[in-house]
């Protein structure tokens, strides 16, 4: 799991805040999610990644923050539906940025939105990195749970490096 690939998602989040709001967001130090950590806020959206890395990317934010964000784009209605929808939109932006950079060897799913923390599951066996995204004094999180794909099905190759010992010709 390369740092550069992870950064793509972080950049995606930063870009969203840059473009959609007047204030940029700040990224604080990421940490590894431990079992006891409760990292999910009021609204979350998850996208699936598959390709040379596979797993999930979550964006989660508290209600107050989403309200503020929604207000930024001039939306006056602030029902839960609107808020949930917008969180999905944010995550879409993040995944859109990812698509650009990760290229044709990846598939990125549409975001699925959750309210509250009960139903949000993290893939077991894969560590999840929680990256705090701070905006306007409020805290949201980008959570990356990705692992490298084994060379199981040898299809997603970039161009192969030359093998000198390619032939066993008698």
């Amino acid at each position: 799991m390369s740092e550069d690939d992870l950064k793509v998602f972080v950049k995606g989040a930063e870009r969203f805040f840059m473009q959609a709001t007047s204030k940029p967001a700040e990224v604080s130090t990421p940490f590894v999610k431990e079992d006891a950590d409760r990292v999910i806020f009021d609204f979350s959206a998850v996208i699936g990644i598959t390709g040379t890395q596979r797993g999930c990317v979550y964006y989660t934010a508290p209600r107050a923050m989403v309200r503020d964000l929604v207000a930024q784009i001039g939306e006056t209605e602030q029902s839960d539906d609107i808020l949930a929808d917008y969180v999905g939109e944010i995550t879409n932006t993040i995944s859109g940025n990812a698509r650009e950079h990760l290229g044709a060897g990846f598939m990125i799913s549409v975001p699925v939105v959750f309210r509250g923390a009960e139903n949000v599951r993290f893939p077991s066996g894969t560590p999840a990195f929680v990256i705090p995204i701070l905006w306007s004094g409020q805290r949201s999180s980008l959570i990356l749970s990705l692992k490298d794909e084994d060379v199981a099905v040898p299809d997603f190759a970039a161009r192969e490096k030359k093998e000198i010992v390619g032939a066993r010709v008698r």
Partner: protein
Amino acid sequence: MKLLIVDDSNVIRRSIQRTIGERHTEVRTAGNGIEALQVFEEFQPEIVTMDITMPEMDGLSCVEAILGKRPTTRILVISALADKATAVEAVKRGATGFLLKPFTADTLNTELAELFID
């Protein structure tokens, strides 16, 4: 029959040559695309083996160039398993046969024979 071996590995070139050599075929070799086209011009082989996993050179353009010069040339493309996309592309551009690395002498001979069965 005239055969041109294009592969940037000297070891492979020699091993292919050893296998074919039993057939009294005239053989020339080339280590990259430019060389291959030059040799092709003057040698005019009927068969070409082309490694398309050479990183320095685009094996596919070479296939296309050769077929452009003489469309009846039989090209046996040699590739590694992992790169299916390039393999499909090679067949698309007109490669006649296909061989996976690593290969044995038997496989090589079979594929060469198959080149002429339509």
